[in-house]
């Protein structure tokens, strides 16, 4: 591993056995391990104190006029990650759920195993594994893909849990009725079980989408370009004195997005809720 350290950013080139290499800008994860980073942090902290004293920290207006376009791009990146990750989590969650209710024992076991593994892994660990461990197996994915995968594998496990609790609300009698008119297992699952499970888990799935959005902030832990909302804050604070204001703008954008997701979720829930 060779490191090059300048005053502001650090370029890390990591060569893994197998000849694959990562060389994409600043790898922030490795910052925490390097003495040069700690030194930087101390200097930065001292300079904050000086700036606060003089009252020159950037206002919201200043930040937006200078970084407005980048905030917009970061918002779009967060949206893109959220939409892709949630869609993937949704599809994988349904598949895992079908496995967990299938009559085939190994499939059921595999479904349970998936949930047990991914419900219990911190997102950051998973991302670190994808970014820094997989290259040892000669698998090098782009940072974007790594972030995307880390932020759907875990929500997929939760998605399956929500769907399972949705399935538990379905009266066994309805499944018997479906079987008694000659429907096969897969027809019963597709036409009776999953549609009802989905309808009764709209609200938890809405929360899951918000949680997925927050999970995509993992992107700030790797040098992914373009930045997501959290990554941009880190970027701004290494180049200018955004301070807490830079976080504040990102937080507002996260909140607004969450409010929109929540509203849409409520609307869908009202439309598809099953009368009982």
């Amino acid at each position, binding site marked *: 591993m060779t490191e090059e350290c300048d005053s502001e950013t650090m370029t890390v080139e990591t060569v893994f056995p197998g000849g694959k290499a990562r060389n994409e800008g600043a790898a922030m994860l490795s910052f925490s391990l390097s003495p040069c980073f700690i030194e930087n942090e101390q200097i930065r902290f001292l300079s904050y104190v000086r700036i606060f004293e003089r009252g020159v920290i950037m206002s919201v207006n200043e930040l937006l006029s200078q970084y407005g376009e980048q905030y917009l791009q970061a918002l779009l990146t967060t949206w893109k990650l959220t939409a892709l990750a949630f869609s993937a989590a949704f599809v994988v969650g349904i598949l895992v759920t079908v496995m967990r209710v299938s009559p085939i024992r190994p499939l059921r076991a595999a479904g349970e195993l998936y949930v047990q593994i991914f419900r219990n892994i911190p997102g950051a660990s998973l991302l670190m594994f994808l970014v820094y461990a997989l290259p040892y197996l000669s698998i090098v994915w782009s940072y974007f893909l790594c972030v995307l995968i880390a932020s759907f594998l875990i929500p997929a496990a939760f998605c399956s849990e929500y769907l399972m609790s949705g399935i538990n609300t379905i*009266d066994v009698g309805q499944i018997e*009725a479906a079987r*008694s008119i000659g429907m096969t297992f897969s*027809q019963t699952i597709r036409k009776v079980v999953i549609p009802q499970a989905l309808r009764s888990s709209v609200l938890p799935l809405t929360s899951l989408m918000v949680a997925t959005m927050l999970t995509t902030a993992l992107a700030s832990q790797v040098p992914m370009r373009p930045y997501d909302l959290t990554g941009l804050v880190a970027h701004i604070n290494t180049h200018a004195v955004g301070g807490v204001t830079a976080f504040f703008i990102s937080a507002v954008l996260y909140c607004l997005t969450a409010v929109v997701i929540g509203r849409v979720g409520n609307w869908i829930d009202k439309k598809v809720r*099953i*009368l009982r």
Partner: protein
Amino acid sequence: MEKDQNSSVKPVPVIELRHVDKHFGQLHVLKDINLQVKKGEVVVVIGPSGSGKSTLCRTMNRLEPIDSGEILIDGEVIPEEGRELARLRAKVGMVFQSFNLFAHKTILDNVTMGPVEVLRKSKKEARQEAMELLKRVGVDSQASKVPAQLSGGQQQRVAIARSLAMHPKAILFDEPTSALDPEMIGEVLEVMTRLASEGMTMVVVTHEMNFARRVAHRVLFMDGGSILEENTPEEFFTNPRTQRARDFLNSIQNH
């Protein structure tokens, strides 16, 4: 499994049980049940609760697995699992005590689900037929509602229409009126009586003794997992052969 013995000499029974045994853990719920239901026959099963009559009804289309013995539909042995089981099940309709309509589907879609998914009929054809069936059971005006918006009696009539849509060889009724308010029992029994008079093969588990008397061709009295008495309704209700049946009839007449 050819059914070429289907000649005029000896018609194949629609449903046949041969030496069927079943346990729920220690409890022996069905003891060596042998039974044939002929085409067009209405068999009413009565007996005290816990006698195994509901279980008997549910084993006939394999909703309950059995420990030993054979169940034949139309001369074909029902297998334990798989597509073949689904195919044979489609031949026998089932009406449940708690209606069990698909809660997320409209009344019309409840009836078309089987024909579209299982019989592979076109949506249009299935809808047309479903509307006729709903008219037959008197709930066609509710076609676009969902089950929770209907009364119990209406829901049960929809459930009957859902069975009929599959053109079954027989329909099993598992206490179809037990979950209904008293004023709704009549409308369901009326539909069932009409079905019987049209020649539908029916196995009915019920506590409605008047219905059994009027409609049944044969009454089975069950207790303790066995069929204790098999009789014509007239004979059974006026002159039951077994003491247990006499006790049972006395106990329900006292109310």
